[in-house]
Every structure is written in C-alpha cells, then in structure tokens.
C-alpha cells in the first residue's frame, strides 16, 4: 500500500528514474523544484542531455505519483537553464549508482565563457571498478548504452562496466 503523503515535494522525491530505477529524480538532480501555486503543484525538471528520451516518462510518472497522492492539479515544467550537471547527483545517488554496478561521476569540468579546449589524449577521468573496487580500469568508449554513460573495463577482474561521465 502506498503511504499517503501530504507534502507534494516528498511525493515528487519518491519518483524514480525510468532508466536507473534505483535512483530517484531527486537523487539525479533532475527534479529542480516543487511548489504550490494557487492550488496547483508546479514541478520543475531538467533534461540530463538535450536528447534524453526519458523526459516524457518522467513527466508521466510525476503526474501519476502526485495524482495518486491526492493532488489533482499538477503542472510539470521543463527548465533548460542552468544546464544539468553530474555534480548535482546526490551522495545517496552516487552510492546507489555504485551499488548498481555503475561507477559514479567525478567532478564535472568547469566551463568558462571562452572556447572549449580540445582534448586529444585519452580522457583524464578515472573510475574505480564498481564490481571489485580496483582502481586499475580503462576506458573503452566515451559513449555507452545511454548518452550519459561511458563504457569502461576493469583490468583486474576483466569485467566491463558503465561510468556516468562528467558533464
């Protein structure tokens, strides 16, 4: 049975990501704001990547959860600015990623206003193997099953794993 919650923010914070169901939208930093305006619950979410195909499902899940919890008037808005950053993933979210076999991101690059410097070498990022814990891992591809993850391999246990790449 669902517990009936009266705080719409608490309800919205229970909604999970469609592709990473152990993480909530709040863990990911996708949920930006929940407030009540003239009796309507206004929820703001931000896409991780411009092409993230999960936004529609997130929107539907948020509407469903809030309707179920007794909030008939709900509006889910997209906010584009500031752009989502992996730095917004909570500590809890990082722990859940690692428990799910996905290496959490390091610190996102700081974007200044000038040109973006070219990076020709292998990426400088590192990630410990989420399966055996070894720091000795290598990057196979900067793009993996979703745009937000890179593909790596552990040189110790030889298992491939995904890594949420810094953005």
């Amino acid at each position, binding site marked *: 049975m669902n517990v009936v919650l009266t705080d719409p923010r608490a309800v919205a914070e229970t909604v999970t990501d469609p592709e990473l169901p152990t993480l909530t939208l709040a863990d990911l930093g996708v949920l930006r704001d929940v407030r009540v305006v003239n009796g309507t619950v206004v929820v703001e979410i931000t896409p991780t*990547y411009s092409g993230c195909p999960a936004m529609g499902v997130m929107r539907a899940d948020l509407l469903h959860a809030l309707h179920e919890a007794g909030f008939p008037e709900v509006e889910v*808005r997209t906010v584009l600015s500031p752009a989502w950053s992996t730095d917004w993933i909570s500590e809890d979210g990082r722990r859940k990623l690692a428990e799910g076999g996905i290496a959490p991101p390091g610190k996102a690059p700081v974007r200044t206003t000038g040109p973006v410097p070219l990076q020709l070498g292998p990426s400088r990022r590192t990630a410990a193997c989420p399966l055996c814990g070894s720091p000795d891992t290598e990057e196979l591809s900067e793009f993996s099953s979703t745009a937000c993850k890179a593909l790596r391999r552990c040189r110790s246990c030889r298992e491939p794993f995904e890594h949420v790449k810094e953005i």
Partner: protein
Amino acid sequence: MAHEETVYDALTNAHDDAGHWAFGTGFDEPLAGVDTTVPDGVDPAALGEYCLMLGDDALVLAQRLTQWVTAAPELEEEVAIANVALDLLGQARLLLARAGSVGVLGRSRDRATASIPDEDALAYFRDPDEFRHTALVEAPNGDFAQTMIRLLAASTVRLAVFARLRGSRDPVLAAIAAKGVNELAYHRDHAARWVLRLGDGTPESHRRAQAGADAVWPLLAETFAATDLELRLTEAGIAVDPSEVRDEVVGVLTEVLERATLRVPAWPADAPPRGRLGEHGPELAELLGTLQGLARQHPAATW
C-alpha cells in the same frame, strides 16, 4: 503492472483523446513550461528562421550519422555514433520547437494535421527548399574516415558557435547553447581522437583519412558566410556571426590534422551562403525521402 499501464495511458493520451501521433520524436513538448517570450526589439520571424538554421544543421547531421547504425566498424562505435546523433536530435527538437513557438513553420502547417506538434511538422513536412542547414552536414557520409572528419569539422564549427551563443539575448537560445556546448565538446573530441588514430595509423587508414579531409574541406566554403538575417540578429545580440568563429575553427582543425600526420587541405575561398537560403544538392531529397517518407504516407496515423 497496473502502474505501467497507467503510465502508458498517460504517455499515449498526453495530448488529446485521439491518441498520439505515430511518428513523433518524443512524447512531450520539449519546451513545456519554458518561457518563450521573444526579447524586446527582436523580430520573431527572424528569430524563428535562425532557429531553423541551427536546428536543421543538427537534424540533418543526426540523420546522416544514423545511417551508420548497423554498419559501423565496431559495436562500441555504433553505439557512440547513435549517441552523438541522439544528442543532435535533441538539440534539433529544442530549436525546431523554438521556431514553432514564434510561429515560423513555413509551409509545413499546410501539410501536417493540427494534432502534429510543431517540431514534428517542421521535421517531416517541409520540402528541401525550406531547410536551412549548410552543405557541411548534408553531404553523404563517405567511408568511416570521411564521416569522422566531417563530424570533427561540423562539431568544431557548432561548438564554437554555441560557445558564443551562450550569451544570446534570447534566454531560450542561450540555454539550448549552454547545454549543447557540454554535449558538443564530447562529440568533437571523440571525432578528433578517431582522426588521430586513422591519420597516424596504417598506410591504408592514413590514405582514407587524407581522402576524407580532401573531400570534406570544400564543404567548408559557405560555413563562415553570414546571411543578412544572421548579421541583423548578431547586431541585435541574438545570433552569432559565423565569420567570428573562423579563426578558432581553422586553429582546431589544423591542430588535429597536423597531430594526425595529415596534410591540411587548402582552405576553400568563401562562397555566398546557399544552404542557409534553402539551396541544396540532390542528396537532400534522398535523405529527406528516408526521414519523411513514412510520415507523409500516413500523416494521420496514431497509436
């Protein structure tokens, strides 16, 4: 299970009771809840045309890249190319939706039924002469080396433009650009690493990479040429004059090719803008035939 069914219902009936249009790129309006007010003193029609230029660059390149799916040289690379294409498609959706939000829909609305969202009407129901991309993104892929050289060139240009566009007076364009910069940096660096591997690889990969560069370079002729509309909007603080990014683009491309032991082809003389004004080669009709054919045959299909 019950919950999943409810979610499915919510998705399929998000817009109206008649079901969801069958060929849309997404289930939702990408600018839902975004303030789309046009800044003071800006001609909405010009802003919309500019969004089509940037949106069509992304849409057409995404379609070209997608042609590698099931044909890429290795599985990881296929996934990478598809991801790059998806990012570009996302940028295209936002930009076409922005064009639609200011009423710039060309003749697409004459052909698309009312229930089809603006972004989809623009993608599926415009004819070749209504597209506003440059020749750089339209040319056929060629082999893998040429594809990566073109991706390097196109993402370097787009990244340089978007980096400047972050300061646009149109908050929607500025936000799309700021988000796009993060994605395009990954695209450009990915392509650049491939160019290094291929150029500084085997004699055969070097030969192909050089041929790819020689084929792509002439496509840059109209890249830095601004249309009157871009100049007017640059003056108004909305757009970026593409001639401003020339030095940066030349610098990046030269650095990558030299490090890849490739000869930098002669830079083409500036040509007047053609693609931005709707003049395209015969390849576009073929590409759009694939992109649009099904939607045009069944314009009222829903699911």
